[in-house]
């Protein structure tokens, strides 16, 4: 197990460097941050040169990247072009997005797993067909469409839930955005669980467990679930990053002042430090979640560890 953990951690290093460098290059090398600062106006060449110098934009790209990464490891994500430290923006935005993601994740986990297990155990029956059709529809309707439609019908017409989220976010306001954000992932989770359960239900070890007289509940919860949930755990882990990225759309619809909102503002104003900072954090979350999943995977399935 120890060797496996070390190997995975070492594999993470080049991926982390590569991914962050890729984002850095995208924003700093292809875009022109100085032109972006001035918007439509043409900057005075001397001023532009001075700003360029003060932001180290004349250094070679790898050196800028190294300086940036050195800053990150000291908790310094640079200063956004309007003078606010990016860390401060993050401090305001991340709690909201993390709450939203957690609400969505909880919905995805509970509803997705329940639907998947029920459908998998009753494969080919009415419930199963119902779950398949429901998930198919949910996957097909893009999040921003579901978002506006639910906001309009549940939030505005019926008034069951808040159509928008106020500045100080409360949990009940996040319920509707959480459902919208969770939607597609929820459908994937239930389909994955269903397939996995249905497949393992026919395996020899389940037959053995049933044959030796175990009660059905124990067969399902201990023998079937533990083996069937391995691919689901993988998906759930990689999905945390996906949910945080998807929050860009959900936050825009429900007016939540989170990461997606800041990222969107950063892009509109071409505020490179903000964009690079937020995307880097999101990518790190994504990579960390992947790593966690791989480790969890090894705990759940000993075959992986010794492979």
């Amino acid at each position, binding site marked *: 197990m120890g060797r496996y953990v070390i190997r995975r951690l070492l594999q993470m290093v080049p*991926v982390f460097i*590569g991914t962050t460098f890729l984002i850095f290059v995208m924003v700093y090398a*292809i875009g022109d941050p100085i032109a972006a600062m001035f918007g439509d106006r043409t900057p005075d060449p001397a001023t532009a040169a001075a700003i360029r110098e003060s932001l180290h934009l004349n250094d070679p790209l790898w050196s800028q990247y190294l300086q940036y990464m050195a800053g990150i490891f000291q908790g310094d994500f640079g200063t956004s072009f309007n003078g606010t430290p990016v860390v401060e923006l993050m401090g305001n935005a991340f709690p909201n997005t993390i709450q939203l993601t957690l609400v969505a994740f909880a919905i995805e986990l509970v509803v997705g797993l329940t639907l998947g297990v029920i459908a998998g155990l009753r494969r080919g029956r009415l419930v199963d067909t119902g779950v398949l059709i429901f998930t198919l529809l949910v996957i097909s309707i*893009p999040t921003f469409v579901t978002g506006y439609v639910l906001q309009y019908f549940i939030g505005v017409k019926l008034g069951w839930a808040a159509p928008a989220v106020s500045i100080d976010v409360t949990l009940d306001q996040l319920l509707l955005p959480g459902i919208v954000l969770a939607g597609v992932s929820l459908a994937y989770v239930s389909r994955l669980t269903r397939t996995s359960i249905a497949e393992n239900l026919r395996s020899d070890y389940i037959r053995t467990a049933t044959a030796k007289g175990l009660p059905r509940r124990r067969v399902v919860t201990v023998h079937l679930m533990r083996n069937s949930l391995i691919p689901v755990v993988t998906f759930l882990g990689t999905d945390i990053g996906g949910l945080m990225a998807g929050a*860009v*759309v959900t936050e825009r619809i429900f007016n939540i002042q989170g990461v997606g909102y800041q990222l*969107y503002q950063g892009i509109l104003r071409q505020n490179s430090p903000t964009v690079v900072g937020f995307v880097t954090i999101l*990518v790190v979350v*994504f*990579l960390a979640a992947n790593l966690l999943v791989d480790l969890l995977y090894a705990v759940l399935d000993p075959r992986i560890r010794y492979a």
Partner: protein
Amino acid sequence: MPDTETSVHTQAPVDAADVVSVELKTDKPRSLWGDAWRDLRRNPIFYISAVLILFLVVISLWPSLLTSTSPYACDITKSKQGPAAGHPFGFNTQGCDVYARTVYGARASVVVGVCTTLLAAVFGCLMGGLAGFFGGWWDSILSRVGDIFFGIPILLGGIVFLSVIKGGSIFTVVLLMAILGWPQIARIARGSVITAKQQDYVQAARALGASTSRMLLRHITPNALAPVIVVATIALGTYVSLEATLSFLGVGLKPPTVSWGIDISTAATDVRNAPHMLLYPAGALSITVLAFIMLGDAVRDALDPKLR
């Protein structure tokens, strides 16, 4: 699966070149593909999705078959008006015919979806196939490169990159989604090539002195392709959805390209007083994604014998 087990692969090793001729000699040779095709033809979902996709392809090639109104012929005095004679879906904010724009919008979605999938699948198969077949250093390096691109969610990378290059053409959107999307296909391809490589009939072919290219083309590719096709078909639906999302956020396709994402985005502010402007393009988009995902499902059911 009755009597498919008689396939030559389970018999004692025969000369690799004979495999084909033996298959031809048996009465009714059933390959994985033959089986899958028979299954598909029995599946109503396959027909529904195939008809829908055919319809979408036809109207994206010749949108004028369904409407004689131009999507750019707008009359601002009719802004946000509901359905009228000759204009079944009503008018949008600029007073353009929503029906015409919904019909013409199919082109962008279909072209982006198909091109991105082809590009991502070809590149992904190449990288994943090489990594899986050669293993060792090749595998380590190609897999890490894939991980780097896999580490950036497509939506996030799309937002950042497209806003920086101020793209907006179909070409840039396709290129970007393929660049960020290929590792998904590569991972699947790598896994199935590794599985296929270890099969006895491939080992037999190698022992009989088949060349690398022969093993790859005759034995590994046909057997490793199935999972890739399944993932690629489902990915096509999600690429269509992603393009609309990027266009909706204002970083994907840009006017004058007619895209459902753009139309939904402009209609969203008026959803309370003119919902028809949003519901028709949104419905068309959802049906398109649905068609591709249903096709993917049907293909998977046919190609994955484990589920039979």
